[in-house]
């Protein structure tokens, strides 16, 4: 049974799934049911050091940089509408391959052209982030953002981080004004 988190909650992935080596971080939301421009949401991941910044721009994994230099993080690609059941976008992480200099993986979702399309997360329904054990495809934890998403156009959904010798996951639900650019800048990416 997957652990359901609320904003701010955390869970030890290593304890929930002993011998965990590889995870899939799934992100989903409902396609727009009303008329108007589609909601094109983009997932991205920041590989962060102890200082909370990327080591280099290559640690910013997004639709134009789908794979980390070390191969530990792979973004499975862009979904432009949110149509379909289950995950709309997914990022695979080989935890055992993540360099020791990376202490946190921050997973963010941004709304493409949010200003031009006059969209924000409050207009998107049923957004979630979940972590799946790739070995047995079982969901370890899930965070439903429905009530935490409001007028933001960029949000950190969750974070996978080292804690002692374990990997943990925290439900963040923190919004940022502005889009992917300002968010990336805040993590030290040169955009």
């Amino acid at each position, binding site marked *: 049974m997957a652990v359901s988190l609320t904003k701010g909650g955390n869970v030890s992935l290593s304890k929930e799934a002993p011998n965990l080596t590889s995870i899939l971080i799934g992100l989903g939301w409902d396609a*727009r*049911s*009303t*008329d*108007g421009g589609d909601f094109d949401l983009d997932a991205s991941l920041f590989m962060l050091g102890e200082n909370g910044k990327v080591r280099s721009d290559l640690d910013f994994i997004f639709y134009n940089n789908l794979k980390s230099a070390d191969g530990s993080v792979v973004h499975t690609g862009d979904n432009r509408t949110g149509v379909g059941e289950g995950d709309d976008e997914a990022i695979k992480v080989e935890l055992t391959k993540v360099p020791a200099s990376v202490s946190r993986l921050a997973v963010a979702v941004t709304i493409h052209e949010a200003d031009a399309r*006059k*969209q*924000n*997360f*409050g*207009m998107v329904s049923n957004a979630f982030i979940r972590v799946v054990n790739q070995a047995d495809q079982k969901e370890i934890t899930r965070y439903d953002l*429905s*009530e935490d*998403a*409001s*007028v933001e156009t960029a949000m950190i959904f969750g974070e996978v981080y080292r804690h002692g010798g374990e990997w943990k996951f925290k439900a963040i639900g923190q919004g940022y004004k502005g889009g992917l650019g300002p968010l990336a800048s805040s993590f030290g990416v040169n955009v």
Partner: protein
Amino acid sequence: MELIRGQKLKLADVTTSAAFEVQIDVQSNLVVDISCFGLDETRKLSDDRYFIFYNQKTSPCSSIVLEASPHSAGFKLNLSALPPAIKTIVFAATIDQEGTMSAIGPSSLRLVENGKERLIFPFSGRDFASEKAVMVAEMYFKDQWRFSAVGQGFNGGLSALLKHFGGEEIEKIKETIPAAPKVNLGKVTLEKRGAAQKVNLTKQGQTVHINLQWDEPKGGFFGSSAVDLDLGCMYRLKNGDRGVIQPLGGNFGSQNGSPYIFLDKDDRSGAAADGENMYVFRPEEIELMVIFALIYEGTAEFTAVNGRVTIEHKGNFEILVPLNNPEGGKRFCAAARIEPDENSIRITKDELYFAGHVDCDRHYGFGFQWKAGRK
């Protein structure tokens, strides 16, 4: 507190009361209907009685009550009296004619408790493109009552909205609901000559009511200068029948036979509160109907009587045609005409003044044979 589209909050953050009003004001020349939907936990309209609109103004539990005036509607809500099955209340604005929500002006939804505004969600045509039905905002129960400024909608209008809620088609729902007195959400004034309004005849066989009222000129005493205005019409039906209905000559028409137009009574003073009334029982049969007002007796002219014609389809529309461009010296005014428009009818303000019936007939080309008559 002012919200923007997409913003969500807990109702407890703005009010501790379960009883309050939601007021929706829409600035528009279009007829914008305000309604509200009580949905179950799957966001479906599983109980049609929780579609609150101008023909069904109160929910069975009386915890949602619509009070409306033109372009403005207020819902009195009492969440504590709502059945537990109702988990979401959606407030909607819909257009049931030509035009889209992009044409509305500065509008707002406000939550008011005890006369105090607790939140306001401003919206306008700039938020929309081709939508004809918009979910303005919703309240929903998830651990507690919450509020969301939705501001999204459907190009397909009310029926698309109902489909979204899994409800029956609007026509089916309307059939199951007994007709009730209309609130004036559909009130339109045709100010200028040539102004036209297309209206939908949502129910076949429903009566169009035409009313003529006027004021007694000031200064006149005890009827010596009383003005007698007659309401009448010239018509041609799709089956070719044509004729004139007016008090003059006693041509009051017929409800049960052709032309299915009936003139109710002759108010000879203008003092009766309800003026002169004519009913069109089969508006869908009309090819051309010219509604006229005639000054039969008295010295006054149209310039002095402030004549106004109202054309009403109960529960659907009310169109006011003020005779506000009066010409002196002419006693016959062709106020408006009704013509078919696809599956509906179109009402156009003409307000053309003639010396009498013959000139009017000549203008519209009915081709009647005329002879003098007297009441």
